[in-house]
């Protein structure tokens, strides 16, 4: 377990392919442009290569730590605590009509 090293110059991860980049860019709605793909994929391969060091460690039987406090989700009393704040909340929206958010047509 000793002598674990953080790689300063990691081996690029091969399993992050061009198709993977397109897939995740679609999932995250980031909209790639043709001209940026090559550099982006090489940077992301290095970052993923950098974190692959974690896979050297045997973590059998270790419970994933999702949170420092290992909280149970607290429940509150079933009481009204907020008044109607729609107008306030929508004041910073880009396009509101009659109290509704307006977006491009979603049904043909």
């Amino acid at each position, binding site marked *: 377990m000793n002598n674990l090293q953080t790689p300063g110059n990691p081996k690029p991860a091969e399993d992050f392919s061009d198709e993977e980049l397109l897939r995740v860019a679609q999932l*995250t709605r980031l909209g790639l442009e043709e001209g940026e793909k090559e550099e982006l994929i090489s940077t992301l391969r290095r970052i993923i290569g*950098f974190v692959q060091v974690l896979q050297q460690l045997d973590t059998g039987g270790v419970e994933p730590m999702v949170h420092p406090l290992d909280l149970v989700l607290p429940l509150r009393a079933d009481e009204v605590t907020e008044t109607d704040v729609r107008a306030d909340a929508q004041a910073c929206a880009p396009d509101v009509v009659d109290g509704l958010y307006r977006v491009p047509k979603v049904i043909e």
Partner: protein
Amino acid sequence: MIDFSLCGLRRALDAGDIGSVELTQACLDRIEERNSELNAFLTVCGETALDEARRADAGRAGGGPLAGIPIAHKDIFCTRGVRTTAGSRILDNFVPPYDATVVERLAQAGALLIGKTNMDEFAMGSSNETSYAGPVRNPWNLSRSPGGSSGGSAAAVAAGLVPAATGTDTGGSVRQPAALCGLTGFRPSYGRVSRYGMIAFASSLDQAGSITRTAEDAAMLLDSMAGHDPRDSTSAERDGEDYSGPLQGLKGKALKGVRVGIVKEFMDEGLEARCRQVFLDNMETLRGLGAVVTEVSLPRLPLSVPVYYVVAPAECSSNLSRFDGVRFGLREAGADSLDELYTRTRRAGFGEEVRRRILVGGWVLSKGYFDAYYLQAQRVRRLLAADFTKAFETVDLLAGPTAPAPAFGIGEKIDDPIQMYLNDVYTIGASLAGIPAISIPAGTVDGLPVGLQLMGRPFAETDVLRAAHAYQLETDWHRLWPPGASAPVGEA
């Protein structure tokens, strides 16, 4: 003579040596004079701050501990009616309809909001270069970075534009800029301070903190900031404590019997040689104060940076999915479908580093990679947290440097994300474990400040603050000003 710290200004205001209007105007003049070169403030609230200062001088503002004292908030805290950008184009026009709990509590304590400080976009960065509003400059050397992501807060306090500022620390974003700017940066335990109204980056790591001149000032802010908040389901079910009280009257061998462990893994070749010497000298100072200094090992600690760069991007990809051009922030025109609206808006609104992290995060959470990357990182996180728990069986505090070297040049690391990530190697461990940690000014190298980091057990903020305060009673590093700078009032 007025000491330009929160505690010093409190005394001066109470004694009538200065008024709130005079103090606030001095800060506004200094901001006017210096901000164009430092780029520390994104928004300045001059008129409202002066109005509040007048109320404080007239005794109409209540007698809170911070009454009449101007402070700045990192632009990640929502402020009602005051633009809040998180350093991102996507929130360039965002005016929140509510205050963050931190903002609300500090206002209740009497603090005046003088402005909002620049930061890395969505707090993703260690140099303040990823901000949509451009980089912040380090008052100690304008060609250097102030660190990040709370770089605007650090530069503002270091240059004497304001006596204190809030920050947030996900992987070191309060401690590292404090170290690089010669200030005290405190990250309380995860859950100690409410995250309500703090724009989320990585929800299991984000924690509000402070950038101040002294540990006493950090305690004074925490007195007001800490405590359970029903509006944040991850806020700990604990009352805030009196953090300032236990610092009073410390003297002499103030750390007698306190066991301090030097983290062995921090002492590797990545630490710049002169910074190492500064750190070793710091340990002698702690010994002189009565501390028992030994070495301890946290064997999984070298994996902290890779763990962080799986967990934080994963959580960021989820949190930042809310920015879609519908409910707030930027909407990019010309979309024919809802899907295109999301994509065009997010493409136009997010900068390069944020995009990279969303992509990495989206990928490690996606089918086929979730177990191997995301769950594995969370498992290693638990092992790493267990290393901290074990270390705290034999020591009361852990000590290490805050950063591997003094402030680096603007432009020096921004092209290589991995070199940038590795700059956080000493701060990320405490973030992953959720424990309180402070960086205090501890020396200089080439005329640039170097920080000492002290970490404590979960919710043992007072242990950390007491040790930092004891150190500051014994040393003068926290009294240094950048070349050519001084306090805007009082100090000679």
